[in-house]
């Protein structure tokens, strides 16, 4: 452990800690003032980088492209410029062919202030990310910010070859408040933090096969996981998609009556399921094989 909390760091601090020291070269830096054209009209202060830093760097000596979203600005929401910076980075990767594109994601999804422009931007990011992955360039998502990775960015994350999460990270489509406001607190109580974390948190994502690495909330651990992912390519073939779809179906079958995560872990044979929220990442990592084997067989 380096002592620092990845979740507590700013996007730029995380970026500097993950790539090789001093290797980051930024494109469209703050001094270029490529900012949201929409926020000023709404009387909201803009950010000089529109909440995302993009550029090239090296990681363990390999040339990579990298992006880091700032969750403190507008909840990491993807606006028109923010999304265009991400999509542009990915398209440039198709031309320049770095070893990998590493994205430090922290976002609530589309920035609601920018509505359709943000939605279109997110879909462009998805398309570009899939193109990069199909071109055989490793795509790596690092999810460890305090705001999690939700909405459109939650989908973007799952388009990558490798998803790395910390035990305190969260990743989902609809956020807890969204689910509660549309389906009621009986469906999902967004104020129950323990429930929110065991449903959307890194440990659950790891145990059910939704993320590829589970690390501690430590920049050095994220860096090591990103280095390990440099050579990981998962071609998106029809067979791979059918396999994924079958896995999801079996998970639904196991979890027939929408069980709590505790029940699902127990159904999958995870040892000492009730203790999972209190375990460190290493102790949760070793509990996955039994759960995935159970999922492969349709139950423990």
């Amino acid at each position: 452990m380096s002592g620092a909390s990845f979740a507590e760091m700013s996007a730029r601090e995380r970026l500097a800690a993950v790539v090789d020291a001093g290797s980051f070269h930024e494109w469209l830096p703050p001094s270029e003032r490529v900012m949201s054209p929409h926020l000023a009209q709404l009387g909201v202060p803009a950010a000089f980088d529109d909440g995302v830093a993009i550029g090239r760097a090296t990681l363990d000596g390999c040339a990579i492209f990298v992006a880091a979203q700032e969750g403190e600005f507008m909840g990491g929401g993807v606006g028109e410029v923010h999304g265009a910076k991400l999509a542009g980075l990915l398209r440039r990767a198709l031309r320049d062919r770095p070893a990998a594109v590493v994205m430090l994601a922290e976002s609530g999804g589309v920035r609601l202030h920018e509505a359709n422009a943000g939605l279109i931007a997110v879909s462009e990011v998805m398309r570009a990310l899939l193109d990069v992955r199909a071109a055989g360039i490793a795509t790596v998502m690092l999810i460890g910010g305090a705001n999690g990775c939700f909405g459109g960015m939650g989908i973007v994350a799952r388009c990558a070859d490798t998803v790395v999460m910390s035990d305190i990270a969260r990743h989902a489509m609809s956020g807890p408040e969204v689910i509660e406001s549309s389906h009621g607190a009986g469906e999902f109580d967004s104020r129950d933090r323990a429930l929110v974390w065991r449903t959307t948190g890194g440990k659950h994502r790891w145990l059910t096969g939704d993320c590829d690495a589970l690390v501690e909330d430590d920049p050095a651990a994220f860096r090591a996981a990103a280095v390990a992912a440099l050579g990981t390519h998962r071609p998106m073939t029809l067979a791979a998609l059918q396999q994924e779809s079958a896995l999801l179906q079996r998970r639904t079958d196991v979890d027939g009556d929408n069980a709590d995560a505790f029940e699902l872990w127990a159904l999958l044979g995870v040892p000492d399921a009730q203790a999972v929220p209190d375990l460190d990442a290493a102790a949760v990592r070793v509990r996955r094989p039994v759960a995935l084997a159970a999922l492969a067989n349709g139950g423990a």
Partner: protein
Amino acid sequence: MEALHFSFDGGRAPAPFAPALVGVVASGNLEVLVEPAAGTGCRIDVDTSARGFGAIWEAVLRDFHERHGLAGIAVSIHDMGATPAVVSLRLDQAVSAIRGATP
């Protein structure tokens, strides 16, 4: 939102530096971008979500200029209701950043 503009004279130019950004636009926080600028003044532009605090900005920024006395720089601020103490800390952090950064 309110846009405020200030200019202070009588400072000394710092060693050549690359633009530096500190802070984040978030509730109770601000971002400060410091860049080299032509001329011998210290220009400070503020966009703030909190209207009606011009006199306090003037006092906080005058204090900053008296502490550091910089010339030939442009300071651009995006603020979301930071308190005067936070503003002063961010400005000092920005000065540290340009003293540690090379062009």
